[in-house]
């Protein structure tokens, strides 16, 4: 797996809130400069996601995990850095240099995103079927019947009754909304799925269902998944490799088993200890 060309490569990604100052290098308190108050939300992150793998990103709240994910999905513009996709210009062009039409194409066909908050990922007043069709229309489909069939197939795959496909997600439970988001993200069989804290806020039984679903999706579609969570149990269950983030930086990375069994960084040791 690691010998293949990465589905996504990120190099020196930096996203800061504020102008920064010469003191920023030495006087960061966590990720905030004591002098100019600039917040270094994502600080010099580099990583690769390989075909078919689940790469977990774990870290405490405010460590920059979601900022990283939302930058990758063009919700935020990074201050500097580069990310390439194997399926976009053969990995030769930085995705943040893409035009807005190209960005739409990337979001519709190469990447799928599941947000922690379903409001960000779904049109709550449109039917579940339309939410999925939105991605298909964006990719150029103009056949209503085929779109309905695909929506039904995807909703079935995430265990939502097709009899409810005409209902709006605002009438669904939190777990169902997450599952609609997942089916929407899968609509065009993207090469990379971005999952941002998909189980946060769900009760334990629903969490288990969603995690089980992600495992099934990985087995069925074989796509790469970038999975963000602050819960090490989720990472242990799903991720092949894991990256640990703290204060906007990567402090440790490696195979998930290796990280869990032999954590090197003090913060990772605390995390693993809390899991036990």
């Amino acid at each position, binding site marked *: 797996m690691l010998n293949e060309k990465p589905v996504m490569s990120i190099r020196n990604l930096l996203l800061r809130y504020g102008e920064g100052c010469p003191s920023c290098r030495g006087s960061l308190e966590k990720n905030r400069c004591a002098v100019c108050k600039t917040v270094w939300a994502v600080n010099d992150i580099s990583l690769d996601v390989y075909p078919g793998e689940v790469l977990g990103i774990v870290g405490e709240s405010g460590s920059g995990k979601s900022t990283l994910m939302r930058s990758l999905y063009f919700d935020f513009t990074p201050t500097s850095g580069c990310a390439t996709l194997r399926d976009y210009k053969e990995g030769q062009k930085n995705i943040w240099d893409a035009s807005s039409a190209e960005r739409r194409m990337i979001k519709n066909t190469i990447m799928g995103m599941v947000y922690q908050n379903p409001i960000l990922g779904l049109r709550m007043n449109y*039917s579940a079927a339309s939410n999925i069709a939105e991605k298909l229309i964006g990719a150029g489909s103009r056949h209503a*019947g085929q779109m309905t069939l695909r929506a039904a197939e995807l909703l079935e795959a995430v265990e939502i009754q097709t009899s409810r496909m005409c209902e709006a997600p605002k009438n669904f439970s939190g777990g169902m909304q997450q599952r609609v988001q997942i089916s929407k993200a899968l609509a065009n069989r993207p090469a990379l799925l971005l999952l941002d804290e998909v189980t946060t806020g769900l009760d334990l039984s629903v969490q288990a269902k969603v995690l089980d679903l992600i495992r099934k999706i990985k087995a069925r579609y074989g796509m790469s998944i970038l999975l963000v969570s602050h819960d090490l149990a989720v990472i242990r269950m799903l991720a092949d490799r894991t990256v640990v983030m703290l204060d906007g930086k990567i402090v440790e990375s490696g195979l998930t088993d290796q990280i869990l069994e032999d954590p090197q960084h003090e913060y990772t040791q605390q995390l693993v200890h809390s899991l036990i």
Partner: protein
Amino acid sequence: MGIEHRKLTNNHYNFAFLDEGSKREIRRATLKAVAIPGYQVPFGSRELPIGRGWGTGGIQLTLSLIGPEDTLKVIDQGSDESVNAVSIKKFVGLCTQVKTTTRTHEATLIQTRHRIPEIPLTQGQILVLQVPIPEPLRIVEAREEITKQMHAEKDYAPIWLQLYESLVKYNKVTIASEYPCMVEGRYVMNPSPIPKFDNPKLHKSSCLYLFGAGREKKIYAIPPHTEVISLAFDDVPFEIESFAGQQCRLCGSGNTYLDEVFDAQTGERFHQCSDTSYCKEVVDHAQ
């Protein structure tokens, strides 16, 4: 001191009310609109002795284009006799002294709201439509800067989604008027609040269609012989309203857009041509 009452005549106004500079500017915008079919051209909408939203866009187009040799027809929802149509006709007549008519084929310039006449328009005729909301994407996007970008990038996915949602909910597209259409395969356009019955009349027509939105300060156009296709999915064809089994109680036409009329005294419901001049011509011809 008494108030001097004078009957206003065309001597008190510039020909066609607007000053020549304003007319030139509107004509320039119109030319640009004709050159780029379906594209909304911004223009400096003038103040008129009519409230915005009462057809000022259409009137400004009419006033900037009309010449002494023109014959004007004004209709409102198909009727030549409605208050709006009569008032606009009087106003333009007052400041131009041009001939007015109710016969579609006699008119060189037709101003209309909500309908396109039943008689096919011919080369040399101009149909001016009054438009309240020119932006077809407004229903899916409130911000003007974003809709401009969407047009520039031909990003019409949200409007297709709107149509699909209608299919999911009601098994058919439920848009009755302002049905969006694609002009020359480039711009999605709002054909103004005409019923979708009239949409096919825009396609490859011989006449020039001009659309004026005074409040929104936009002009757009469909030049003669332009391809205008109403949006429809590959497997769900575009359909116009059906009046199957109904006919006009006055002229007997069964292939026109019919209004349903309710007679409160008798409790009777009947259908009647929405285009009153067409109906009258059919009746006159029969007699």
